[in-house]
């Protein structure tokens, strides 16, 4: 595992282009586009004010920078640096801006959700969509980019409009049987739309593309309802996390519940692997292997390397091999212009390994007692995400903020629980494989894969508090974002591990 130099960043705005070639990041009013591999600056754009939101167009040709305070959107082209576009929403204000999937239209939501303006970059045409609903997730595009589903509110009733993205024509318009629609989300296959009610009522509705109501699901009444929803990448499952601390999985054939996953505070099943972050690194576990004396194990590199294996569950395939060493300067020199800007080869302090221990059951997790008299209580399933191969589901219960639960979807049971020392800020699956990156706002980034679990201290002087993570589309690297810095973490691929091990002798 190699770490790049630390770069400046503001408001956690750092995004890989969809094709994986570039990395855009913002520093105050400047937009910096770097090569995702060498991290050399490709383009530098200057906006009129502090950038509050950026988004790549789907074809990675344009970047949109939203300056909400000024009601402005500035668009930059990567191919033609001199090309620019500025959209001013004027006195109507701006609260949200996004690309349409074709990368040639920009959807701007005005203040108070008065309307959505669709600006085209190809023609002078401007379209308006009235009555958009101010809700959690009111706009959703299908994965193929053909359709847009939009939540609307007219005359105190919720509606959903389905528009064709190619010409912004209304395809379907139907009312939903909800008190207060909170969000809509297309299934990845683009044929089913899930719509759920606000937290006051547990209700999820499933609509076909042609507006037919396929099914309604209500787990219980008279209590706070849905908190989070996620489709599995295969569109087979819909996971619904709710305020009762459970995740319910619906199937795509009958739209009935297959199973529900509770999140108990104590784990009794010995089959479940519990990883607990240790306060300090435990003493080196070489005592057991004292005889015969290890030949090369005592090298300094092994201390910079952190790989922990579960005593019983490690299957020998070390899918997750991490090597903590800075990328050598020779590497960068061979890759391009040897500027100080590129990768940092200066030897800083080697990152100290952080061990997780495999706790033996029963394990009781730290639970937060929610304040009952406040709005938005810290209970329920706040986040959930399927792995790209559909096999795993990661969840976080807000009442147990330090833990990430990983469920095996094939066996429909709990597989592992990762308990960190501090509350989990964000977790994200590798877009290519079952590998989960977790950050807790501390100086470490945690990675889980079915083979095991690793935590890595981000190298660098001072604290690098990882507030968010962002995977490269190829899954080879990971951007770690802190409050005003970011750095890249390069993960070795399978063959990379082999070479790394071969080179180890040279390093030591």
């Amino acid at each position, binding site marked *: 595992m190699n770490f790049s130099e630390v770069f400046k960043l503001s408001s956690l705005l750092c995004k890989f282009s969809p094709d994986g070639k570039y990395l855009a990041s913002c520093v105050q009013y400047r937009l910096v586009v770097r090569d995702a591999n060498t991290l050399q600056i490709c383009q530098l754009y200057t906006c009129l004010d502090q950038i509050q939101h950026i988004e790549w167009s789907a074809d990675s040709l344009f970047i949109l920078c939203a300056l909400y305070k000024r009601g402005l959107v500035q668009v930059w082209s990567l191919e033609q640096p001199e090309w620019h576009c500025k959209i*001013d929403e004027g006195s109507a204000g701006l609260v949200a801006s996004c690309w349409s999937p074709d990368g040639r239209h920009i959807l701007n939501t005005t203040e108070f959700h*008065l309307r959505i303006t669709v600006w085209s970059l*190809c023609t002078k045409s401007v379209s308006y969509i009235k009555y958009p609903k101010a809700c959690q997730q009111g706009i959703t595009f299908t994965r193929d980019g053909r359709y847009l589903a939009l939540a609307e509110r007219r005359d105190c009733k919720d509606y959903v409009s389905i528009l*064709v993205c190619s010409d912004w*024509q209304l395809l379907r318009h139907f009312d939903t049987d909800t008190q207060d629609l909170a969000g809509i989300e297309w299934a990845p296959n683009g044929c089913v739309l899930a719509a759920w009610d606000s937290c006051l009522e547990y209700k999820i509705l499933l609509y076909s593309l042609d507006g037919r109501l396929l099914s309604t699901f209500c787990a219980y009444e008279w209590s706070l309802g849905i908190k989070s929803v996620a489709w599995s990448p295969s569109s087979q499952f819909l996971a619904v996390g709710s305020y009762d601390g459970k995740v319910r999985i619906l199937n795509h054939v009958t739209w009935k519940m297959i199973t529900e996953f509770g999140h108990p505070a104590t784990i009794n099943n010995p089959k479940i692997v519990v990883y607990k972050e240790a306060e300090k690194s435990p003493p080196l576990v070489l005592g057991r292997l004292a005889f015969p004396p290890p030949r090369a194990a005592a090298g300094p590199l092994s201390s910079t390397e952190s790989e922990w294996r579960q005593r019983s569950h490690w299957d020998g395939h070390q899918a997750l091999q991490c090597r903590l060493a800075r990328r050598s300067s020779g590497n960068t020199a061979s890759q391009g212009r040897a500027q100080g800007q590129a990768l940092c080869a200066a030897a800083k302090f080697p990152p100290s390994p952080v061990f997780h221990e495999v706790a033996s059951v029963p394990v009781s997790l730290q639970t937060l007692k929610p304040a009952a008299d406040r709005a938005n209580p810290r209970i329920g399933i706040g986040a959930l995400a399927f792995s790209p191969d559909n096999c795993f589901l990661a969840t976080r219960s807000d009442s147990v903020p330090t833990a990430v639960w990983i469920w095996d979807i094939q066996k429909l049971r709990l597989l592992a629980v990762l308990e960190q020392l501090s509350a989990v800020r964000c977790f994200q699956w590798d877009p290519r494989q079952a590998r989960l990156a977790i950050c807790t706002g501390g100086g470490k980034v945690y990675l889980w894969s079915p083979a095991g679990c690793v935590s890595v201290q981000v190298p660098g002087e001072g604290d690098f508090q990882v507030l968010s993570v962002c995977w490269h589309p190829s899954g080879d690297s990971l951007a770690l974002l802190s409050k005003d810095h970011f750095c890249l973490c390069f993960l070795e691929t399978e063959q990379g591990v082999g070479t790394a091990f071969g080179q180890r002798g040279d390093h030591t």
Partner: protein
Amino acid sequence: MGDWMTVTDPGLSSESKYISQYTSETKMSPSSLYSQQVLCSSIPLSKNVHSFFSAFCTEENIEQSISYLDQELTTFGFPSLYEESKGKETKRELNIVAVLNCMNELLVLQRKNLLAQENVETQNLKLGSDMDHLQNCYAKLKEQLETSRREMIGLQERDRQLQCKNRNLHQLLKNEKDEVQKLQNIIASRATQYNHDMKRKEREYNKLKERLHQLVMNKKDKKIAMEVLNYVGRADGKRGSWRTGKTEARNEDEMYKILLNDYEYRQKQILMENAELKKVLQQMKKEMISLLSPQKQKPRERADDSTGTVISDIEEDAGELSRESTWDLSCETVREQLTNSIRKQWRILKSHVEKLDNQVSKVHLEGFNDEDVISRQDHEQETEKLELEIQQCKEMIKTQQQLLQQQLATAGDDDTTSLLRDCYLLEEKERLKEEWSLFKEQKKNFEKERRSFTEAAIRLGLERKAFEEERASWLKQQFLNMTTFDHQNSENVKLFSAFSGSSDWDNPTVHSRPRQKKPHGAPSGSPVCTSKLTKSLPASPSTSDFCQTRSCVSEYSSISVLNTAPEESKPNQVGRECTNQKWSVASRPDSQEGCCSGCSSTHADAHIEKDDLP
């Protein structure tokens, strides 16, 4: 049980008497029974009789009393007291035999009566106590009855109270329910009100929004604009199309196409899944048939009609379903058949399995003890085997440890030598011991010899002294004789005195006896010497130290070689040291090893000595 009363009241005894009388009277003829009973039953009368009886016979009325008794006795059925009169007028004679017989009989009767009376009395007693007991029982039961009645009353009271409570609780529940209902109503009304309010607010909000919209949008806001350098081409390279009805239709078409595709895809998946399930089902069915058919023959005789028909069905089905085409039929037609046949087979299988289960349980019950014993035996055997294995493993580990230690000690220098050494160590040791004793003996002999030598030397010295004195006297004489050789003689004297000093030459050898014996037993003594040397060093001996000492020794020896001239005792020692050094050089690696391996060193050294010996 009540106490048995032993006290008898007089009334009771009189009663018993009466009874005895009564019983004796029963023997009388029935005709006279009544009058007798009347006569005897009245107690005062009997008393009269008693009193009368006391004065029954006097001198005067013997005759009368005899006749009376006779009469009485005859009426009681006894033979007459008088002899049979021969004549009419003759006075009847008293028959003594008859009287005695009568008396005897009366006495017997009396005894019998007494016995009977006793019996009756005891019986009476028994009955009395029985009665008491029963009375007690009665009292007790009565008491019980009373208590149970009281209890019942208490329970009834409690029941009543509980019912009361229950009623109250019911009332409370009802109240609570009402309350809940009320609250729910309140909630519902609040909710509706809230909703209503929300709606109102939202309407207001919408109105405001509308107004804002008008204000913001319809003002022809100059600011709302897009500045773009030049318009870019569409991503697909096509030109934008106009919105017409056609496009709408096309959109619809596309949408349905997408949906259709999705459904088709899903249908395909489902079909595939179905086919697979069918395959599994078929296989299961086949296996079931094959499993069930061979053992069909046997149970067929006792199988009742239903199973028989089922079996025939199965066979039919088997024939039918062997044709693959049936599986390709839609489910509609095949389903019924399939499910039915499967169900039937399942039933058969189930019954079969149950039967087997029963059999097994029976067998298990029967052969439980045997099995238990066997299992225990097995268990013991197994444990024995395992223990043996453990032993073996332990030994193995031990040997391995030893080997490893040796390996560690030699540090991979040459482990073969150590191995070899180890293998003929024991016998060598024996031999060495023998030789050691031999050496000791030799040493003793040497010592003896040396002692004799020294004695001889002393004697020689004495003799020499005597001779010298003799010589001196002789020289004196000569000197006195020829005074001219004065100077020469003085020199000679000096020389002789120096010579006489050499008589001391033997003494150091005596003093250094322990040292001197070493050259004699050089091979055996040399390890002792080395050990002494190493011991003299302050810290634990190491190879380097040893080497140092060795070099020291060699240096010392060379120095001593240089200094031989002044000290005569030295050469001997030097020679010894030299041999010592030679030896230590020859066995350097071994000694080194011996130093490191500690305990085994002595053995190794001993062995080395052995090697050097021949």
